[in-house]
């Protein structure tokens, strides 16, 4: 859609008080727009009683994202995104046993400073009930490059009540760890990831919608973390994971619009498994409440639980026979809760959104599996501000 004149916008805004008018407009095409987003992500310092040595300060990331959306004509649209982020802090390096207090975390001593730049472009075609989207992207930082592409399709049924979707993506990643010779890290490695997905959305009635989807991802190549070490039988040696991984997810989403309060309930569930033995479940519930004058307030709560693969341990007293070991806290058995509050203000020409999120994770929040006293489990704050201008 071309840029609408102020006259059209004023008329549109003044018609919204009429019953039913907002619902009729809800299905309108996306307007041309430019949006800027700033995110500040701040991991809480590692508690002193879990730190063996190194810096307790963990990552702080500031990222800026610019997104441009343009309808080229009736069926084609273009989306271009650029992102730049700067990261600083220390990262968990390896874990050492301490008979008195349990495993202790060794952090990298020096502050890591990294910049990452990402560029994405996507073209969509929406015609005859079919939507096709092709996208490519490139991400670069001093030790990691990724080039990726994807295709996604969507078809609405004749009566508009059902939508099926499908897609595939591929990514080629190259890793060149810094100080490889100094720390005996792999000098150069590659990683390939391919994934396929299918989904189905059904409108149950005028106020409710369900969506379900399956995806399958296969990774091969160097899947270990070159910057992490593992305590194995009194030695500290490189993180070692299988060089193939097959992952599957199942998602189910539900939306219910409440006519009386004009609010919407959102409930999302996700199951994840892989052939390394990782299992996870995520449940997220949110409440989208319009508050008048273009405001919408959305509180949401998310619960996540994960069980570790066989080759995870904070420390290994004996050397595993298969040659795989990792003490990366992200593979541990743990549970996490996150609390999020979003406020969005929509005006004719622009919209603004502010989101604050607090995330806490711990062994004791895990729903199943055996927690193994992972010292590096983290808590973080994330604040996001976004401005969108309709062009």
């Amino acid at each position, binding site marked *: 859609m*071309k840029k609408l004149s102020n*006259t059209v916008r004023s*008329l549109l805004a*003044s018609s919204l008080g009429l019953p039913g*008018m907002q619902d*009729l*407009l809800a299905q309108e095409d996306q307007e041309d727009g430019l949006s800027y987003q700033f995110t500040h992500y701040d991991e809480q310092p590692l508690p002193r009683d879990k730190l063996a040595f190194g810096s307790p300060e963990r990552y702080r990331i500031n990222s800026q994202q610019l997104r441009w959306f343009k309808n080229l004509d*009736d069926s084609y649209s273009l989306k271009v995104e650029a992102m730049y982020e700067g990261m600083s802090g220390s990262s968990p390096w390896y874990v050492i046993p301490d008979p008195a207090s349990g495993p202790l975390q060794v952090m990298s001593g020096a502050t890591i400073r990294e910049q990452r730049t990402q560029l994405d472009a996507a073209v969509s075609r929406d015609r005859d009930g079919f939507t096709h989207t092709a996208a490519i992207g490139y991400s670069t930082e001093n030790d990691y490059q990724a080039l990726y592409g994807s295709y996604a399709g969507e078809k609405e049924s004749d*009566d*508009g009540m059902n939508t099926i979707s499908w897609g595939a993506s591929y990514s080629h990643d190259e890793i060149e760890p810094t100080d490889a010779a100094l720390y005996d890290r792999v000098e150069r490695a590659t990683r390939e990831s391919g994934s396929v997905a299918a989904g189905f959305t059904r409108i149950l009635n005028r106020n409710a919608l369900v969506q379900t989807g399956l995806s399958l991802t296969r990774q091969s190549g160097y899947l270990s973390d070159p910057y992490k070490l593992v305590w194995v039988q009194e030695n500290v040696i490189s993180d070692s994971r299988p060089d193939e991984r097959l992952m599957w997810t199942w998602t189910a989403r539900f939306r219910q619009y409440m006519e009386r309060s004009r609010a919407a309930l959102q409930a999302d569930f996700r199951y994840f498994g892989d052939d390394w033995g990782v299992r996870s479940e995520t449940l997220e519930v949110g409440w989208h409440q319009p508050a008048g004058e273009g405001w919408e307030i959305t509180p949401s709560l998310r619960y996540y639980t994960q069980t570790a693969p066989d080759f995870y341990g904070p420390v290994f007293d004996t050397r595993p026979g298969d040659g795989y070991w990792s003490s990366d806290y992200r593979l541990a058995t743990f549970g996490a809760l996150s609390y999020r509050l979003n406020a969005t203000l929509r005006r004719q020409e622009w919209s603004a959104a502010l989101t604050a999120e607090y995330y806490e994770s711990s062994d004791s929040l895990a729903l199943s599996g055996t927690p193994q006293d992972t010292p590096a489990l983290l808590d973080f704050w994330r604040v996001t501000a976004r401005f969108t201008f309709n062009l």
Partner: protein
Amino acid sequence: MATHPLPFRHRFGAMGCPAEICLYAGSRESASAAFALVEEEVNRLDRKYSHYRDDSDLASMLRDASRPQGVRADDETAALLHFSDTQHRLSEGRFDITAERLSALWDRRTCLPSAGDIAGALALTGWSKVNWSGAGPDGPVLKLPAGMRLDLGGVVKEYAVDRAAFLLKSAGYAAGYVDLGGDLNVLGPHPGGKPWIIGIRNPRGPGAIAAVQVSRGGLATSGDYERCSLIGGKRYSHLIDPRTGWPVQGLASVSVMAPTCLLAGAMSTLALLLNPEEAIGFLAASGLRWLAHDGHCSRSDGNGMLRPVPEPSTPRDPRKPLHETLHETLPETVQPARTTYCH
């Protein structure tokens, strides 16, 4: 396996013009229920807002609005008045729902009204003379000078089209359209995604000047041919400039596509109230799709959606009412064999 929805068509008369609904439904019964729903809603709005009827809610509201304390408007009426107020403001006074006396004065005349008649009607015209508080402490209150009347016909028909579309969408219908006298809301394209083809009637002769593809949203046409007066061989529009009391000398017809029929109708009406050059500039800047006809030739936004056709492909059936809209031929199951014209 789900049964393929079948197309059904229903024609009726409402608000003084021919009306039509085309709808893909699972059965004739469900289609009939949907048609009844729409007719009921359109009739409700007609009963409520008709300025031709003395028993309409509007008529009784206008009687009460002349009292010193005014009258409290219900939410729907308040929202319509708010929308009309916006149109008045945006048109710098050219659009005025209080111009009812002037419209009545110029309606289908054979001779020019006297200067005294025009001055008399002008005295009872002017939205600025109305005391309208859309959000007062006691809710929306309307106070009218004695003798002033309101004509919401310029917005209610388009609003009724949108209301009908909203009710059909809420009832789960996704493919079809509602057409009230040439103002449409398209719920969604034919099953499979093919858009509906809607004809725009020629304001100066038989047939259509354009075939328009519409997949969803509103399409409205305003023209100087409705209720116009031919006086001494000169055509006078039914649209009166409330600032002068004389008919507007503007374009012959303007069609606009917009997200809703109400919006499309407002934009086509505002364009028709401007002189032709201003109107073309106004439409070109709108960002919407449009087609304008100045009585001789047509101009459009040029992006192909409103594609003028030089000659009408089918001659007009003389038995048909003057108002014409050309729609795409429906499959044999419901298509009346006689014509591709609907009304």
